[in-house]
């Protein structure tokens, strides 16, 4: 049986079919107007390659793991649902006041625009009634207000309603009553309640997260229904799983209950792949980059773990759910180059898959990064994707000539070199954000490279940053999909548990965890995970009395006793000292939130073996081509290798171009590449 990873990107939708010691990768153009279409196209492509039809293919697959960008795109492009918000009277503007804080980095920039409101002010409807911090009711819910609000939202024809009342997680009765009224009055309208989405303290964070959840929910629901409907129509009897922003996978029910976890989930497969590949080469410190058609994602893994963020701004919207930290830059193969009053810029505008770069000859006339790579001789001048994508090199030249070269009095080649330089600089800035700016020297890291476009830029980026080792898997073009097939299941269950640590009743806390763990484990069991493959972690968010930010301590799920609690307290002091240089053992500590992380382990598929052997790479050399390098001050004769014929464990010296089925690796002068038996190129200087 096979495992199929499907990862939707802005330009391509990627497929990884893994199992039985083999791994195959496929790409098909994304279909932004109807993303499910690309999934269908890809399944047909894979089936065709295996000489069967889609039902035949699906019969041999037990798990489909999917990374979808529909939720992310809805948030980026502001094409999500029309959402109404029911909130506590007097607090209808917390979404717009945003705690009164302007994002750091723009302190003296008087022209930095405000973030677009996901719920405009006229759809934020206040309702009377108030719960206080101890859960007591200060004023009963004003049901007349709720019915008026319903009327207003009905008239406005909203697609979804978010409900977030002050202190609702301490006393959910008002939110629950609103739930009943909405179920009667607005059946069929999607709803998101703050007590379900994020039952923890901080009204602004909880409201914002609930609104984002509501904003992407209808889009995600429609999409999941379409994809799974199609799979079922074709007789699929296995499981469908989705990658989440926390870096783990879940079922469709799990995702649809918490659609916010689908946001930014696309790039979450990258770090998993980077960690997996880095470990094979003995490196726990890796920077993982993934350059697709539209965007460039970068994450940093140190000592084998990738940073988790909570209560942070994602695409300018506050999110309270735990998510892997992945930065995204608008730089990709489809990024459009343009000349703006004498200044050459590349991206963030992207030609995407449709019309795509000029060289695809699908109606695109604007020059893109890919067109520059064609002109510079890096990419094959006739076809890509093993012949499935024809390339019109002249179209690339015309686009660069017309939009960049002519007005800047540059020749086409120099203009193409300029496009490459600028797009590389943008990506270097992105890598700096996760490394240098966080105090990590990139020279201490290996770089794992993904994306169809990434390997052509990899050694150039590494040169800029002083990185000495680059890892490019043959499956590079589908790195996230690859990460998806090696990811574990993961479910976070959050709760509020405010109590001084010294006052905690061990049995009560144990019982609270038992509830959360029963949910997480129940979900894993429903997803078909064996008891033996389940592991549990308990996260405790604590702080010294009168601090307001919690500091996390993670512990295995062992029984809570008084002794265990005093160890927890000591562990907190230690963690505090590690982070902030001091501890206050004499000060009281409050537990604020708890979180259960349920992980279901998945065996990575076996994918080594079957590669050619030989003494050198000469037999794989298929052509020479003029290619441009800054180091050689212009175009030089450059050998071109057929990646499928390159033997393992031989060196390919740069300058060289290695053409794989779904990507092209450019080995800059001064670098050499060596393929290992699991299909990963190690490039060193």
């Amino acid at each position, binding site marked *: 049986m096979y495992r199929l990873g499907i990862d939707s990107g802005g330009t391509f939708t990627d497929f990884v079919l893994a199992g039985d010691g083999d791994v195959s990768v496929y790409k098909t153009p994304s279909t932004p107007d109807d993303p499910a279409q690309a999934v269908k196209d890809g399944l047909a492509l894979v089936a065709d390659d295996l000489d069967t039809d889609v039902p035949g293919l699906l019969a041999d697959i037990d798990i489909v793991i999917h990374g979808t960008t529909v939720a992310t795109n809805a948030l980026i492009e502001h094409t999500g649902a029309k959402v109404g918000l029911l909130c506590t*009277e*007097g*607090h*209808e*503007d*917390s979404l*717009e*006041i*945003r*705690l*009164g*804080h*302007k*994002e*750091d*980095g*723009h*302190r*003296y*920039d*008087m*022209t930095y*625009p*405000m973030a677009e409101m996901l719920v*405009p*002010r*006229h759809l934020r409807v206040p309702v009377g009634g*108030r719960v*206080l*911090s101890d859960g007591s009711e*200060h004023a009963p819910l004003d049901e007349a207000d709720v019915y008026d609000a319903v009327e207003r939202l009905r008239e406005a024809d909203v697609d979804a309603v978010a409900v977030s009342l*002050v*202190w609702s997680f301490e006393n959910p009765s008002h939110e629950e009553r609103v739930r009943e009224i909405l179920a009667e009055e607005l059946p069929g309208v999607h709803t998101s309640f703050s007590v379900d989405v994020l039952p923890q*303290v*901080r*009204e*602004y*964070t909880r409201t914002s997260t609930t609104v984002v959840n509501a904003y992407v929910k209808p889009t995600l629901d429609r999409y999941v229904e379409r994809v799974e409907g199609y799979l079922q129509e074709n007789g699929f009897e296995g499981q469908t799983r989705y990658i989440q922003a926390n870096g783990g996978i879940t079922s469709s029910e799990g995702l649809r209950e918490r659609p916010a976890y689908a946001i930014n989930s696309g790039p979450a497969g990258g770090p998993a792949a980077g960690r997996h590949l880095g470990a094979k080469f003995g490196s726990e410190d890796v920077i993982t980059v993934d350059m697709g058609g539209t965007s460039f994602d970068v994450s940093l893994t140190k000592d084998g773990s990738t940073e988790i963020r909570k209560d942070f701004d994602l695409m300018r919207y506050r999110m309270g759910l735990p998510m892997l930290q992945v930065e995204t830059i608008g730089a990709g193969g489809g990024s459009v180059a343009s000349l703006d009053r004498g200044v050459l810029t590349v991206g963030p505008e992207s030609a995407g898959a449709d019309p795509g770069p000029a060289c695809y000859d699908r109606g695109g006339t604007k020059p893109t990064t890919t067109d520059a790579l064609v002109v510079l001789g890096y990419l094959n001048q006739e076809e890509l994707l093993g012949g499935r994508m024809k390339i019109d090199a002249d179209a690339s030249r015309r686009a660069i000539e017309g939009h960049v070269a002519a007005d800047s009095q540059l020749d086409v080649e120099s203009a193409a070199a300029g496009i490459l330089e600028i797009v590389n600089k943008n990506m270097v800035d992105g890598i*700096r954000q996760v490394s*240098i*700016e*966080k*105090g990590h*020297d990139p020279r201490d890291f290996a770089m794992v490279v993904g994306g169809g476009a990434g390997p052509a830029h990899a050694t150039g980026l590494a040169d*800029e*940053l*002083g990185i000495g080792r680059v890892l490019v898997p043959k499956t590079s073009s589908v790195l996230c999909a690859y990460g998806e097939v090696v990811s574990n299941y993961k479910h976070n269950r959050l709760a509020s548990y405010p109590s001084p640590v010294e006052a905690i009743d061990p049995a009560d806390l144990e019982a609270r965890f038992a509830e959360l763990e029963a949910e997480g484990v129940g979900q894993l069991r429903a997803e078909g995970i064996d008891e033996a493959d389940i592991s549990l972690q308990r996260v405790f968010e604590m702080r*010294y009395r*009168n*601090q*307001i*930010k919690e*500091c996390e301590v993670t512990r295995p799920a062992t029984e809570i006793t008084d002794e265990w609690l005093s160890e927890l307290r000591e562990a907190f002091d230690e963690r*505090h000292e590690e*982070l*902030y*240089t*001091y501890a*206050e053992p004499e*000060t009281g500590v409050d537990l604020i939130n708890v979180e259960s992380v349920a992980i279901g382990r998945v065996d990575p598929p076996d994918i080594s073996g079957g590669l050619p052997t030989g003494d050198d790479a000469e037999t794989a050399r298929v052509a020479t081509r003029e290619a441009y390098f800054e180091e050689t001050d212009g175009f030089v004769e450059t050998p071109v290798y057929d990646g499928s014929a390159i033997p393992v464990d031989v060196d390919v010296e740069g300058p060289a171009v290695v053409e794989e089925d779904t990507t092209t690796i450019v080995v800059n002068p001064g670098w050499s590449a060596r393929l290992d038996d699991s299909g990963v190129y190690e490039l060193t200087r």
Partner: protein
Amino acid sequence: MPEIDPITLSVVQGSLETAQREMTTTMMHTARSSVLNIARDYSNALFDAEGQMLIQGQDIPIHLGSLMPATKAVIERFEGDVAEGDVMYHNDPAHSGSHILDCCMYKPVFVDGELRYWTVSKGHVTDIGGPVPSGYNPEATEIYAEGLRIPPVKLWEGGEVREDVRDLLLANVRSEEDWKGDLNAQYGAVNIGERHLQRLVDRYGGETVDACFDRLLDRAESAMREELETIPDGTYEGTVPLEDSGHGLGEIEITARVTVDGDEASVELESPEQVPYYINSYEANSVSGVYLGFMMLLQLDPPYNEGLYRPISVDVGEPGTVTNAETPAPHVNCTTTPSETITDAVRTALEEAVPERAVASWGHTSGVNIAGENPERGTPYTTMVLASIISGAGAAHDMDGWHSRGPLCCFGALSSGDVEIMEHMYPIVLHRYSLRPDSGGAGRQRGGCGTIWEVEPRDHEMQVIMWGEARKTETPNALGAYNTLREPKLGRVEHEGEDGEVEEYRENAILTVAPGERARNYNPGGGGVGDPTTRPVEAVAEDVKQGIVTHEGAREEYGVAVREDGSVDEAETERLRAGRGNESPEESGPVPGGER
């Protein structure tokens, strides 16, 4: 001098930014007072051995200008008497502090036994002793009546805290426990900075690191010089009124004369004799106010360091005046009033110099603090309520002002705090924290809205301590913007009794609010840019739809008639706008700082 490659230079710059940011994170995550952990009223910076600021970060703008002279004052005070493990502490404006509430910690950083750098953390404490909780005493006629003055002292010596000195400090303040925790937080912050600097020197060597620092200072200086070069040479003047917020001496004026000569600028301030009221500003704070005026117009890209300010010289006026106060002038309100007036005087002068880059002013500070005894815990509490001063931002040429990102002295660096966190920390119910319609200055580009903050004490009597101004004078507009509805542009405080009767306050006072009663603070919006009758009709209609501008506001200020159903009455709008052609803004009241 060692050869510096561009990657090392970027890593050094990035490490400075990280060190600064992590110091800030340490304060935010570990401090106890809500002024610090909720409101982010702190600033952290790194300095070289001579006291040159190497990185300024994104913290409170008004703090940062004064940190430069303050650090130099501390270095001078302890010259020859600095050992490893020492930590200095200080708040005295007479030693270049800003105001006594801003308490500052300084740690010398040694590498191989040599003093090379200083890490500095300034934080606004919740209380500094004196007769009024939170330190804002409108009755003080001398600094001695405001609270504890701390000239530079050693608080840690050779790595050990000096308990005698710490006890002296703690014995003088309310909320002793929070204070103690805040000292630890600051200590954590300066240690974090030290750790990063030592790591950097370990990695690249002191000589290389210092060469990078010099290069970075020079780069910032040349960036500022390039900007100043674009301003036509000449002397420009801006005069801005400062209202009588309770001293009874009437309105006063502050003037800034800005002379630009090539790539340098000099600024002279002029103001009346210092007054027996807490709105006097000592030198370091006034200099900082001047820098803000430049920063808001020139909008240089980060990173920022002391190099930026090398081409700007500042004369804060005759000693003994409001902008160059001397002991014993009371001063606690100075970081907002009159610093915001000083910034506006410079901004107004520069508006004349480079109208194409002009921006409107931001809402000035107009807020409250609270104090009382927590009925459950039986302990006193006091805090500044930064949420109450989150006013509207000013408009720029092509953009409306942000709502709720003020005040002017902070440019969005503060945080109002989450309602649930505030109610968790204090025995209060926050009934309202929302945007204030019609508060944004009327212009082609509209100012952002200010906010309304409404509180009720739970089971105890609470003091509400007013401070700031902007209750009689509107936020200065720019380039011909003017207000017709003045009232919603001004701050005020309301005290609502249990019977619903409302009393209004426009001068600083201390109110006592009983359970069942409420206090409401209204603060101003930001200034507008350009003639309001040229604002696109559809933009006005959209503001009405969102409740940012009322129907009356649309009609009176913008000449746009919006019907109840939201549609625009075009004929009426045309008539209204035609009738506004030669209307003089004077008829609708003075427009401070606004040109026509």
